[in-house]
């Protein structure tokens, strides 16, 4: 797959159809892979990588790159194409200036899950018939592939590309995922239990803002969390109110626009399950205002910029659920 991608990227660079390529490159270790922009065949040969760790959704980089002179080639997994659609719809990305090659999705791996098995000094990870062969400083280790799957991939919602100019590999289908199970489990707890759960989770937040910075729905040029007058500017939360405020507002700002790409939870250094907040909004929107998948198209109206006269009253929150 990686070879086919590099080959195609080189062709498109060579015939002048694109000026730049957005993909992934290796970091210090084989598993810490970062998004990168390539401008020449040499750079592609040297650094371009596509493997079990290329989980980053690179669509957000198009906000900047698509505004530059010349077309940009981007490799998008199915989930990332939803983000691109959403960005196109919000006029954040100039779709005409982007050439999308759809590539197959995961499952991708979570290095932390490998480390959690007590495996250290990791040099490389290979997948052989769903067994991971992990080369470490201390010899080779093995573990089942399924034990190291990234959470966002474990509850994948779709293997279908919703926008692309060409595909490498096969297109898939929309899946039946279990992504709302945990939200439902929380909903069925008592208010006290939910409160305790979230206090424990949210108090871990160090306000690094990684969740916002990575989010393709968070592309505001002036973010409320950077505004010193807001009282919630870049700083560690001073108390439990500020923790909750940050998380409620962050999730609310992306409500109806979040494609559930899972990036926020993936990058959180504190492992806070931010996806549960996003999914709570998605679940509510689906049940109260009709099924809606952000990014599925570029024309539908977002649920929060739309209404019907027959919408339920806010008191519905009081009428349902566990006290």
């Amino acid at each position: 797959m990686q070879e086919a991608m590099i080959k195609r990227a080189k062709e498109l660079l060579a015939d002048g159809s694109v000026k730049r390529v957005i993909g992934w490159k290796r970091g210090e270790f084989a598993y810490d892979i970062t998004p990168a922009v390539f401008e020449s065949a040499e750079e592609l040969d040297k650094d371009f990588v596509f493997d079990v760790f290329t989980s980053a959704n690179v669509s957000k980089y198009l906000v900047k790159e698509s505004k530059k002179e010349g077309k940009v080639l981007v490799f998008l997994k199915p989930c990332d194409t939803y983000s691109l659609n959403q960005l196109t719809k919000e006029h954040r990305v100039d779709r005409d200036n982007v050439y999308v090659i759809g590539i197959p999705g995961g499952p991708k791996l979570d290095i932390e899950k490998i480390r959690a098995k007590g495996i250290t000094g990791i040099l490389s990870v290979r997948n052989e018939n769903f067994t991971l062969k992990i080369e470490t400083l201390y010899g080779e280790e093995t573990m089942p592939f399924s034990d190291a799957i990234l959470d966002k991939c474990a509850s994948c919602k779709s293997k279908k590309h919703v926008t692309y100019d060409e595909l490498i590999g096969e297109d898939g289908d929309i899946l039946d995922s279990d992504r709302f199970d945990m939200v439902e489990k929380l909903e069925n707890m008592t208010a006290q239990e939910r409160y305790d759960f979230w206090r424990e989770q949210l108090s871990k937040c160090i306000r690094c803002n990684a969740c916002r910075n990575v989010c393709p729905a968070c592309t505001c040029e002036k973010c409320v969390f950077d505004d010193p007058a807001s009282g919630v500017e870049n700083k560690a939360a001073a108390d439990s109110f500020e923790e909750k405020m940050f998380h409620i507002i962050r999730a609310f700002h992306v409500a109806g626009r979040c494609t559930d790409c899972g990036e926020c939870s993936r990058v959180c250094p504190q492992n806070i399950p931010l996806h549960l907040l996003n999914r709570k909004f998605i679940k509510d929107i689906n049940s109260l205002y009709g099924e809606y998948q952000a990014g599925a198209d570029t024309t539908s109206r977002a649920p929060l910029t739309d209404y019907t006269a027959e919408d339920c009253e806010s008191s519905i929150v009081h009428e349902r659920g566990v006290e």
Partner: protein
Amino acid sequence: MQVNENKEFQPLIVAFCCNWCSYAGADLSGTNRLNYPTNVKIIRVPCSCRVNPMFILRAFQRGADGVILCGCHPGDCHYTSGNYFTRRRMTLLFSMLDFLGIERDRTRVEWVSAAEGAKFAATMNEFTEAVKKLGPNRRLEDLRCRKQ
């Protein structure tokens, strides 16, 4: 939160009222000499949809025990559709607060027209009672803002 001479808890209520209906409704309940608790603090807004989720959180932060948002009846908004957006926004916000384990009776949306002075007073009495039962807001307060 305030405590009167009998050491009885009196919740502090913040009521966002839209200029065109509910604020006028509050006025009418005043001119009709209807009683509602003095601890209901009204904040006038041009339309219910002026209230963004941050306003609600801020009110709690600064010491409110309950926050109520009043606007024109659906269909009667001075700006045609503002309150329809409000309705979706607040439904989702309240649901999220509930999801985080914050007592759901601390928040409410009510539609009150300029002619409904009696409804305004009754709503405030009822809401204040409900919040009083819950006691002081502890789950969404900023300790640095606590008065006593």
